């Protein structure tokens, strides 16, 4: 049964007439054209589909569209402001913290979520906070460095 669902997507009020049981990942990619959010495993084990729901990192492959009604959803496309990269995006680019780039949007969204909660994470907190996001090219070392750098820049900006 289709239903009207309303939420704030990347800062804009969005309304969809949709079956609320549809998986959020495919709604974002398919109906809304936001293909930065990736499918990797479909059961929440890899993190390639991570988005922010009310500032918390969430696996969009394991969430239905109905569950985000009236919430704030941010995808990788909504991170840069006025063409200026978010500090986490910038740190990933500057640290070469990616190879094929397919896990990168999910990594970045997860890292933003982590820094929202812990603005000054220790190395161990970064590792445990990023642990469930998988990267097969194995850019882990540089991703950890990028999260450190982003944390410093974000505090400096405040």
């Amino acid at each position, binding site marked *: 049964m289709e239903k009207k669902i309303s939420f704030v997507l990347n800062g804009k009020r969005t309304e969809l007439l949709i079956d609320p049981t549809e998986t959020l990942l495919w709604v974002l990619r398919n109906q809304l054209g936001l293909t930065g959010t990736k499918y990797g495993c479909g059961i929440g084990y890899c993190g390639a589909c991570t988005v922010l729901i009310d500032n918390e990192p969430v696996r969009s492959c394991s969430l239905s569209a109905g569950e985000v009604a009236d919430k704030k959803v941010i995808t990788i*496309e909504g991170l840069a402001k006025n063409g200026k990269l978010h500090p986490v995006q910038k740190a990933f*680019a500057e640290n070469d913290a990616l*190879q094929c780039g397919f896990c990168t949007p999910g990594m970045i969204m997860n890292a933003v979520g982590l820094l929202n909660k812990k603005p000054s994470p220790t190395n161990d907190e970064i*590792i445990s906070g990023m642990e469930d996001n998988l990267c*097969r*090219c194995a850019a882990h070392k540089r991703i950890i460095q990028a999260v450190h750098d982003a944390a410093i820049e974000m505090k400096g900006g405040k």
Partner: protein
Amino acid sequence: MKKRQNKISDTGFSPESSSSGMKRRDFFKLLGGGIMIFVQPWKMIDLIDSPAEQGRSLPKDYNAFLHIAEDGTVTCYTGKIEMGQGIITSLPVMMADELNVPLEKVKIIMGDTDLCPWDAGTYGSQSTQSFGQSMRAAAAEAKVVLLEQASAQLGVPVSQLDVRNGIITDTKDPKKAISYSQLTKGKRIEKFLDVKPAMEDFTKFNYIGKSYKHSDANLKVTGQAKYTGDHKLPGMLFARILRPPAYGAKLKSVDLSAVEKLPGVKVVRDSDFIAVVSENRNKSDDAISKVKAEFTIDEIKVNDRNINEFLLRSDTTGNVVRTAGDIETGRKNSDKIFESVFYDGFLAHCPIETHTALANIENGKLTVWASTQTPFPLQDRLVREMAMSRETVRVITPFLGGGFGGKSAVEQAVEAARLAKLTGKPVMVAWTREEEFFYDTFHTASVVRVNSGIDNSGKITFWDYNVYYAGTRGAETIYDVPNAKTISFSKSRNAAAAHPFSTGPWRAPNANTNTFAREVQIDIMASKAGIDALEFRLKNLKDEKMIDCLKAVADKFGYVPAKSPSGRGIGIACGSDAGTWVAHIAEVKVDETTGKVNVIRIAVAQDMGLCINPEGALIQMEGCITMGLGYTFTEEVKFEGGNILSKNFDTYQIPRFSWLPKMDCVILDRKDKPPRGGGEPAIVAMGAVVANAIFDATGARLYRYPMTPERVIEAIKKK
């Protein structure tokens, strides 16, 4: 004296016959004016002393490699693809240096069968060492052409000209200058290169040897980089295909009634090939779960626990790949003899992007966007499967979300093409993770038997090496042994397939298996001889590159010699792959009650010849080390009765952040040597270096990877 040919008729080049899709002449017209340099690849490959390409023989025409447009933009056309290894960044660096143009003026078009020259595929760490060198030659030739043009226009001999940033200047009168774009304006010059031109001396490099960030990083951190699955065409359908529950299963009956009633969903059927399609991926996913199918299962007896014994019992033929001296003489001259058997299982590739393809047929022409490492072999496959002519099939390769050898298999693209034909609509096939595991072309399970001996001085007396199913990559003896024999056993010609499912190349194919067997056997001998593992290697090596790497890594690590097992948990291993030499030293911590092993730190030294982009090469080394921890500790495809039990990342563990050791990588300075491969070498010794470090820590010897806690405990009990 250099010979250059300009006339098409002299060269055997036919612009009408193209190895790709679009008629070459049409394509060249599209390029407009400027300078085009064509390289005859099979000749270039001889000239640059590279290994012969595999598969389809190279086309007998020239291939457009390089175009300098009227605005001075240099475009490099390559059938190679970008999958994270970074050639999208490093190939333009090579071009910029040969042509003396600003790096930002160099563009690269990759993996499009209509636009790019034929290429066997992107694998084997060949892009820089083979293809890159051809491109450099083409660029060097282009510069000669431009210098000749400038010489005529400026009235100055070529020898008196200098090029910087795309501007040619008279060294005696700097006011006399002309840019590449001025030279190419209104002109159309085609050159056919069949003689190796002199390439730029490394002392004159402006760009090569400096470090570059990924040129595609901005696209990738913003989510704008388009992978195959991110493409959309009007009316595009998402397909889900009915899959068998196990290998060897056949469709007995199917009930599609529930699915046929679903709104917005269509069933497509061509005998046993059944799919549901919808413009909404969620609806296709829902529909496929509602298909009721029964299969007959012809249960396969082999499983992940008995596969190695099964392989040894299978009908094999041995191929002697190397002999030196006489094994029996070697045995007689030995004071100690060692006989070992090493094992490994199937490995999955696990790119985070699953196999994906979008196919569209329009006006009799099939276009397929595919996540593939082999766009041209895919084109060939589509020509056969779809009974179409090569001119009507185009493969376009967007960014790849990882390959590791697994995307040399292209089944998903054939499925998408079939469905596009059956539906008359553009069709996207994006495998689920379960499909990815089920249809992956795994690294093969294998067995290696090594018999070897040493004399009382610690010199290796003989080396009798027998590898089953893993082939010879990485099976070089490396050490200086007077009596040696290497035999590679594979399936006999008429025997039934030994493997229950498809196998294929997995990052540094089989070099991991062979390096593991060799380097653990070396460690066994060093330990029994009572000689430090580094000293034992140096004593038995003549290969200077290997010796240099070992010394460099020992220096980086701060290695202190000791007889193993020393209790410190420090291991050594070395090897070579893709023309590159590597040496590793690792320190591990073993929890002897749980069997859990942590790599605390690792140092790696690598001789890869001229290093084009040192930062990019370091990233590849770090990637190899980290990915190598996967096959070392956890990765092994579980299967039973023809079913793949490893279905997702919960049942097949790949490396995570918490596994990360401290890494120190060194790239030896070899600017005067040709560039070699960098995407694979540093992974080959990972299993061995960890096994040797575990032995040094505990005195327990592991002959099989992955070295799971259970296997470590078992080895500790056995010692």
